[in-house]
């Protein structure tokens, strides 16, 4: 059950990273999980910093993301998340694309057996395009910055715990994260906190399904957005549903749907709408002697 993962939705407008797939488990030594996924999103509903919903021109985003986990020891797992290409555009602009920011997560198991508990440190290295201007297709003098990376170095620290019900194929996970943000081009951003809960169940001993609830909030009260497109002041609650279907040997198909509401944190500085994702992952199992 630890192998199930939802597609890592990354860089949703405006460059929100959601710490998906957090659990108290680490991989066993030699175990791996490698996924390539595609997600698509489109919305006209923008929630401003005051939480007011505005109807704007439609914003569209598609992402191709590589996500991998590998257990170097039974207690240490390295996780990498790299948006291979983010495509961003409004209905009134051209679409621009670029590589996203690389997130490397170093996860260590604090407790393993009865109370799985793990801590992880995940620096996000700003290798994506911090500025990527899309020209308007309506007025030739207008353009908008739709970067594929947020341009700033930041570090997520996550504490996560999980439980499983023995032979009954059900599990749950709970996590809390803190995102230490720095600055880009002299603009400082507020730190963020994220929380999340996940439950999963295996149907007919074949298909894993799961449900998640995540929340993100700013540590500081933001009165004026330092930069709309770099997630400053962004807050939201998201919920998602996923299914993981075995396809061939250790290859699986992953389907996800995610959307937003105001249940934990009111939506602020974010486009809200349904995100559909599809991915293929490979479960690497160490050879048994």
């Amino acid at each position, binding site marked *: 059950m630890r192998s199930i993962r939802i597609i890592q939705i990354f860089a949703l407008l405006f460059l929100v990273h959601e710490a998906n797939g957090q659990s108290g488990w680490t991989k066993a030594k030699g175990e791996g999980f490698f996924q390539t996924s595609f997600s698509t999103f489109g919305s006209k509903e*923008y929630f*401003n*910093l*005051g939480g007011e919903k*505005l109807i*704007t*021109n439609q*914003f569209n985003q598609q992402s191709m993301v590589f996500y991998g986990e590998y257990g170097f020891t039974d207690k240490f797992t390295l996780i990498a998340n790299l948006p291979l290409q983010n495509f961003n555009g*409004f209905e*009134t*602009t051209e679409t621009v694309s670029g590589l996203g920011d690389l997130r490397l997560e170093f996860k260590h198991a604090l407790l393993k057996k009865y109370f799985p508990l793990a801590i992880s440190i995940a620096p996000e290295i700003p290798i994506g395009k911090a500025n990527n*201007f*899309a020209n*308007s297709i*309506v*007025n030739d*003098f*207008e*353009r*908008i*910055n739709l970067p594929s990376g947020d341009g700033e170095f930041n570090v997520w620290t996550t504490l996560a715990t999980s439980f499983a019900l023995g032979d009954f194929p059900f599990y749950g996970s709970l996590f809390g994260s803190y995102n230490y943000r720095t600055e880009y081009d002299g*603009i400082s951003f507020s730190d963020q906190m994220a929380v999340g809960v996940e439950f999963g169940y295996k149907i007919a001993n074949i298909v894993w399904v799961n449900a998640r609830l995540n929340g993100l909030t700013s540590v500081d009260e*933001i*009165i*004026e*957005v330092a*930069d*709309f*497109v770099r997630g400053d*002041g962004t807050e939201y609650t998201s919920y998602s549903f996923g299914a993981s279907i075995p396809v061939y040997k250790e290859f699986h198909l992953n389907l996800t749907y995610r959307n937003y509401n105001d249940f934990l944190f009111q939506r602020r*500085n974010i486009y809200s709408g349904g995100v559909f994702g599809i991915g293929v992952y490979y479960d690497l199992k160490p050879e048994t002697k």
Partner: protein
Amino acid sequence: MKKVILFLFVIIFAACGEDEKPVIIDSSLPNGVLTVQRTGTFVDQNASGSAGRASIGPDTQGTTFLAFNNEFRTKLSTGTVTVWLSTSDTFTASPGTGSPNLLLVGPVRNAGENFFKIPTGVDVGKYTHVILWCGAVSVPFGNARLQ
């Protein structure tokens, strides 16, 4: 040696005495004094930090200008912010009828003092507001009521 020094003296002073630099008249700036007819303070919208004052009126030669004062600012890092004159505080585009309630003034690129020349023949009297508009997204960044 004296001849050399005298020669250099003459050359230097001759250079200093050349014609004055030509005066470049920037037609995008008011000529002479701008007579403010109406003015208003920007109200921020959508946490974009808009502030400052907008004024409208003719310059000495009778050309109408919209002017932003030194305190003007808005969020310019996200994308193009376009200045419009409007008959209300709401941006109401009507492409089918040529948007009679709006007049495109132009994009604003910098914080601080800005001048925008209003085309000749435009009746600015009917426009009551200045709107700062992020056109790519279609959201207002602020407006100022001219009175």
